[in-house]
């Protein structure tokens, strides 16, 4: 999986027009420098050799240097935690909002509160989060002065750090809450219609155990799988939100790298995304098997 991804990344980046050696040598047009760069990255060798060399270095933790001769590895290492923090915060928001509303609307299906909540969720799905971000800035930062409009403060100042990330995390989290809620609602409705829920009712269990134990545990299984599929959307969301709020994270780094055609940086960034993808899927598999005994015992 990772191998395929890295080949695609490598090939894709090489497809970008322009001479990578010149790009890497930055403004320095000195033929000697260009030759040195070429030698280091084996740019005069055929592509498979270049690829092998790149992977070999990447495995050792060396992702090369970017246009400004800064270590790509270091740049990514300094930017990634910011985005991870944002991702974690927004996931927390979306789970806190999305899961309970999904359960409640399923239980109260067909009642006015269900219609209201599913309606809001549908709107939530239809609102571009970057626009929601803009509106949030207007509201909470410009008009009300409650929270800063953007930027980032390191975790050394935890309160300032949270203040800066709160708005972006909520904006991003709300969008995912809508996805999560809809998914949760539909799998809860599935579970509530099953024979084993009928059995649980026939046993005289309280509605609370019927819903929150029997139906909920089974619904979580499907929701987990769907959550794994949302990773791409999450990364896309982080990119736009970071741009809007001026957060110097991995997302804005990605956009900068692409806009500046910084080959080594792009390669590094996408490789990290691919690794992240693999890790998340692994996690989803682990959670899935924890929730689902049918997988566990096989």
């Amino acid at each position: 999986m990772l191998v395929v991804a890295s080949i695609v990344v490598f090939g894709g980046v090489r497809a970008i027009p322009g001479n990578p050696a010149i790009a890497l040598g930055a403004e320095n047009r000195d033929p000697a420098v260009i030759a040195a760069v070429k030698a280091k990255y084996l740019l005069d060798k055929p592509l498979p050799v270049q690829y092998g060399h790149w992977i070999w270095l990447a495995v050792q933790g060396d992702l090369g240097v970017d246009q400004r001769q800064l270590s790509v590895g270091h740049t990514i290492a300094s930017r990634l935690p910011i985005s991870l923090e944002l991702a974690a915060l927004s996931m927390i928001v979306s789970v806190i909002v999305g899961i309970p509303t999904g359960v409640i609307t399923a239980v109260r299906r067909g009642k006015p509160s269900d219609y209201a909540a599913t309606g809001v969720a549908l709107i939530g799905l239809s609102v571009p989060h970057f626009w929601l971000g803009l509106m949030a800035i207007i509201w909470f930062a410009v008009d009300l002065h409650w929270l800063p409009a953007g930027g980032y403060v390191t975790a050394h100042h935890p309160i300032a750090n949270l203040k800066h990330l709160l708005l972006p995390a909520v904006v991003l989290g709300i969008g995912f809450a809508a996805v999560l809620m809809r998914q949760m609602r539909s799998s809860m409705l599935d579970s509530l219609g099953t024979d084993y829920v009928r059995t649980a009712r026939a046993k005289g269990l309280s509605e609370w155990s019927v819903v929150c134990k029997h139906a909920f545990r089974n619904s979580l299984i499907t929701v987990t799988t769907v959550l794994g599929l949302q990773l791409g959307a999450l990364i896309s969301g982080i990119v736009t939100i970071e741009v809007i709020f001026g957060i110097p994270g991995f997302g804005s780094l990605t956009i900068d790298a692409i806009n500046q055609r910084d080959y080594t940086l792009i390669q590094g960034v996408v490789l990290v995304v691919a690794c992240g993808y693999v890790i998340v899927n692994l996690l989803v598999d682990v959670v899935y098997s924890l929730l689902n005994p049918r997988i566990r015992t096989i």
Partner: protein
Amino acid sequence: MSAEPLLEVSDLSVRFDTDEGPLQAVDRVSFTLAPREVLGIVGGSGCGKSVTCMSLVRLLPQTAAVTGSAVFDGVDLLALGPRRLRRVRGREISYIFQEPMTSLNPVFTVGDQIGEVVRRHLGLSRRAARQRAVELLQLVRIPAPERRVDEYPHQLSGGMRQRVMIAMALACDPKVLIADEPTTALDVTIQAGILDLMREIRERLGTAIVLVTHNLGVVADIADRVIVMYAGRKVEEAPAEELFAAPQHPYTVGLLGAIPRPGERQERLEEIPGRVPAAAAPLEHCVFADRCRFADETTRTQVPALRAVRRDHLVACFHPEADRAA
């Protein structure tokens, strides 16, 4: 039945509100259940027998409108508040469903699911509940209960799962056990085992059983009294032996003709021509009229009332066998 009835159902009707309009599933059904009695309810698929039973413990979806009364232990189950209803469910009246493969929750162990009932109703501790679960598994003759109690449903066969369902239903020594086609989804060889178990339960625990089935053989095996349902109505009721010896309703006669008899070579099992009617409202004529050999003007314009052709033998027919014989 002379004893004071345990359960007395009168004029039970169920109507479903479907996308295609209302649907009358059960039409004014009445019956009683005595302590320790095994009552069989038979009929073809869609005759309303399962709906009747599920409405007693109110397990039908909200689209179902239930009227009538079902008095159990002095209270009308159909008028009970949700809290008191839950105290009856699983404790006084237990239910076994047709589909053992899907009726157990796949993500909890068998022990959890059995233990849950006694923890809920008898307030047992987690530990005591597990102990009780092991005992119950033993009672329903599951080998190696100490090991099985910690297994998940998917690790058990269909027959075993149905035994688990029965164990769960017996957990609080209920007064009534409703078994809704308990053997239909199982292999023939396993069916016999489950039926033996049910008979044993009645002998040992004295539980009254309502056995719903479309299989007359099963009924003949263990029921004391039988109700025959057709298109939402009770068409005949009699003690089991009597019903098999002298069926009165043409539908019952037809049903009996459809049972294969061992040792008797038949070219083809008899079948009843035509279809079961689906009605939006109670029909104003005999429900079997369209398929009945003896149908006439009366049959097509009036509803036959239940009448006793013999002691304890009721039939809703204008032309029961007894009349024709006479």
